């Protein structure tokens, strides 16, 4: 038992977390005594203890499960330990519940955890739609309702869309570039374990005195700086989710830059790798801004710093600028990896090279650059200086150009292909239509007079869901089905997959399509009660949304049963050219028994005799340096 309490794991984490609470109690006690709170009643302040605990307990949990062990050992100057790879790879299911340095295990941990939060966030949405099925109060009060939509958005943004892409990327990227693992496996392990911490913190806010944080995922000050303690669960949860994001992005960048297989130039990288490269640039530059914005809120709320207290010289609009300087690029953080998935799926399932590969890569970089110049389009009605609206409207319209290039290139890739219309492809094609609608409503919102009318209405709710559900989630489903054989070694059920697609596609449009109309007609978002003229459409939306919720159960059933007992997957069921399909399903612990050599582009379908990578001895330099496109393999 004593050994168990000392070894990294949940037992050590448990007593260390208790230690965290004790530390928080002690610290606040000492500080409060020394600043003149002399009576016993004032020594102990629940809210102060809770605030400090929310920082100390998660950090000690991470220490307890062993997230920092190697670095502490190293920092203490102890004798180096030979790496025996004992913390690498999964041999039983239990290996998924500990610190694990294998990128494939971490990829699965990430993906499964994210989907857990998708289902929780989705259930919360069901509660919201039940409340909104009719005007007036049904079964939750205003405070609970505000908490529901705030937690719904926060979970699905910070605990689903962003990390699930990091999870799929984690599994696939090292395989795709021919690397044995990520550049920093221990950092990778730590970045995963920050996620459940952030998620449980946000969910736990429902149990906080005063209820969950209830001013939206945007947490606008000064409403948030005067909110009950639940707000702190958001302010700090975001720090852990954000730190996780930054660590993974750094890891992706270094891995992609330094660990590509011989012969894999940047222009021979699969577009998924390009997409995650672009996304990681956004993450490392932008994420510190949301961390800052929430620290400001925390300091205002807990310690009276008055950053956003206008009466004490604070600047209310500054919050929004700092917040959106992250949160607009975040929209691309939540979309670019999906673009990468769609490129993989469409090329393989159309049996054609990606049309205009270089423009596909450059348009990603254009979005990264332009993505930082549009943030104030969220603030057209905020009361900021009116001239700022003009350049922001222009850049917002122009950013649709690189996005359009991608859509048109995908369409041209489909043209004259041999289309395999299975589940991943159906989701990719569905994505093309729903995301186009989201893009179009986005362009409309760039037009300031129109935006002034619909800002913060259900039109915005419709738009964001066409982008993040019709866009991101469609690509995530496409990606999960596409790599399911590689990740699990099993095939999913195609018939159930198609059912899942059609029910999702139809009920998605029935749920979010009508929201455009009620928004134009004047229904504000973030209200638990509304005028009776919106009743009919809201009832319709609620019914459609319940069906949409049920459609995900088809997915859940398919994934669980296929994982447990589906047909064993071949190494390359889709006849893909990229490197992840050239190893077994699931891949060996260190991915490649022989280092692959890349000799051509990743999507040379239809080119006679073309190969992307080969495990043959290194070919002659003349072939390797031949640039992308038509390089032929020397053997095979």
């Amino acid at each position: 038992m004593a050994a168990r309490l000392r070894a990294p794991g949940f037992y050590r984490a448990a007593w260390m977390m208790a230690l965290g609470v004790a530390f928080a109690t002690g610290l606040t006690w000492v500080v409060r005594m020394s600043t003149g709170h002399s009576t016993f009643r004032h020594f102990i302040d629940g809210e102060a203890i809770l605030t400090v605990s929310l920082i100390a307990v998660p950090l000690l949990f991470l220490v307890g499960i062993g997230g920092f062990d190697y670095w502490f050992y190293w920092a203490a100057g102890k004798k180096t330990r030979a790496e025996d790879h004992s913390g690498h790879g999964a041999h039983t299911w239990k290996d998924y519940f500990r610190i694990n340095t294998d990128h494939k295990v971490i990829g699965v941990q990430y993906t499964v955890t994210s989907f857990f939060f998708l289902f929780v966030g989705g259930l919360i949405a069901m509660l919201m739609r039940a409340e909104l099925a009719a005007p007036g109060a049904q079964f939750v009060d205003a405070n609970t309702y505000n908490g529901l939509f705030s937690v719904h958005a926060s979970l699905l943004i910070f605990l689903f869309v962003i990390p699930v892409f990091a999870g799929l990327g984690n599994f696939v990227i090292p395989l795709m570039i021919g690397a044995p693992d990520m550049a920093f496996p221990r950092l990778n392990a730590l970045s995963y374990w920050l996620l459940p911490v952030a998620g449980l913190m946000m969910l736990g806010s429902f149990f906080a005195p005063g209820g969950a944080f209830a001013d939206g995922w945007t947490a606008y000050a000064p409403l948030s700086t005067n909110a009950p303690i639940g707000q702190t669960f958001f302010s700090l949860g975001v720090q852990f989710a954000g730190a996780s994001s930054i660590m993974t992005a750094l890891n992706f960048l270094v891995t992609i830059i330094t660990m590509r297989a011989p012969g894999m130039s940047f222009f021979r990288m699969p577009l998924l790798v390009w997409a995650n490269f672009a996304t990681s640039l956004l993450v490392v530059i932008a994420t510190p801004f949301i961390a800052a914005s929430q620290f400001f809120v925390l300091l205002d709320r807990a310690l009276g710093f008055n950053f956003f207290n206008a009466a004490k010289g604070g600047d209310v609009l500054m919050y929004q600028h700092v917040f959106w300087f992250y949160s607009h690029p975040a929209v691309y953080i939540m979309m670019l990896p999906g673009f990468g998935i769609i490129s993989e799926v469409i090329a393989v399932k159309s049996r054609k090279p990606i049309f205009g590969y270089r423009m596909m890569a450059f348009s990603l970089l254009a979005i990264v650059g332009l993505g930082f110049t549009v943030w104030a389009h969220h603030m057209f009605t905020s009361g900021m200086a009116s001239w700022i609206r003009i350049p922001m409207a222009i850049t917002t319209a122009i950013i649709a150009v690189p996005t359009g290039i991608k859509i048109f290139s995908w369409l041209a890739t489909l043209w004259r292909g041999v289309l395999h219309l299975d589940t991943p492809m159906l989701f990719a094609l569905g994505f093309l239509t729903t995301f186009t609608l989201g893009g179009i409503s986005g362009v409309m919102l760039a037009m300031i007079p129109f935006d002034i009318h619909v800002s913060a209405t259900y039109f915005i709710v419709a738009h964001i869901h066409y982008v993040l559900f019709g866009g991101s989630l469609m690509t995530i489903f496409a990606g999960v089905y596409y790599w399911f054989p590689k990740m699990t070694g099993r095939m999913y059920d195609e018939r159930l997959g198609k059912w899942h697609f059609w029910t999702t596609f139809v009920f998605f449009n029935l749920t979010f399509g009508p929201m455009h109309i009620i928004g134009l007609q004047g229904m504000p978002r973030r209200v638990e009660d509304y005028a009776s003229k919106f009743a009919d459409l809201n009832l319709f939306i609620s019914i459609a949304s319940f069906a949409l919720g049920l459609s995900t159960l088809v997915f859940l059933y398919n994934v669980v049963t296929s994982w447990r007992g589906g047909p064993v997957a071949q190494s390359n069921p889709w006849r893909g050219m990229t490197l992840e399909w050239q190893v077994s399903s699931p891949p060996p612990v260190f991915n490649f028994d022989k280092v692959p050599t890349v000799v051509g582009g990743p999507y040379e379908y239809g080119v006679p005799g073309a190969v992307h990578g080969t495990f043959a001895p290194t070919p002659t330099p003349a072939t390797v340096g031949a640039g992308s496109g038509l390089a032929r393999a020397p053997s095979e």
Partner: protein
Amino acid sequence: MARQRQLIYAIVAAVVAIAVGVALSYVIHWFPVQASTQAHNTDRLYHVLVDASIPIFVLVVTVVLYCAWQFRMKPGEELKDGPPIHGNTRLEVVWTTIPAVILLALVSYSFVVLHDNEKKPAREIHVGVTGQQFAWSFQYPPSVTHGKPVESHQLYLPEGESVQFALHSKDVIHAFWIPAFRLQEDVVPGITVKYRATPDRLGTYPIVCNLLCGLGHSLMRATVHVVPQAQFQQWLKSHAGATVPGGAGAGSTAGTTSATAG
């Protein structure tokens, strides 16, 4: 040959879909009534945007459906690949340039509308708007009342006269939105935000707080009465010197109580 005929079917179907879509976009009542000159401009902008969007959306959907119909794998093609087409520079230049031109044209038009909606008229009246959790109050200065200032929970505006609102907040951020005018602006503590409207239709229309401001947010409503000039003057006269309970600082608490109870 057969494929050429099918391509023509697809193009015809797309043209029909565009025509139906555009026609529908004028049949559907998208908006509440138009009660300001700005509303006319904004709704026209909306229709232009929808008319420009429908062909683009139909183009994408048509190509997707056409490909799924014509290029889907047929039995026996399991191992077949498509032609190795890597790109076409001319086509890529076209689909970069044309959308860029369309977008810049649309955004330019939106600036014209914005300028029209916001330009300073020859004559205008000034009305103060105060937002606080969870009620609105309105202040009419002597320049408007030609007597004592007036403060009220009701917003009365004369038809056909431009009004400039000056927005103040007592606590958190609110948004002062009149859907019938198609206009809103945030009410921000610490600064004064201004915007103009020209009501041009008699009637009463809802005022909505459109930025989450706390428990009573969904109940923070008021009404704007657009009345003839003579009736407006009469209303001002009958309210000369009126203040709302507790001045601009207090206000109705109806919102608060029912929100916490509900």
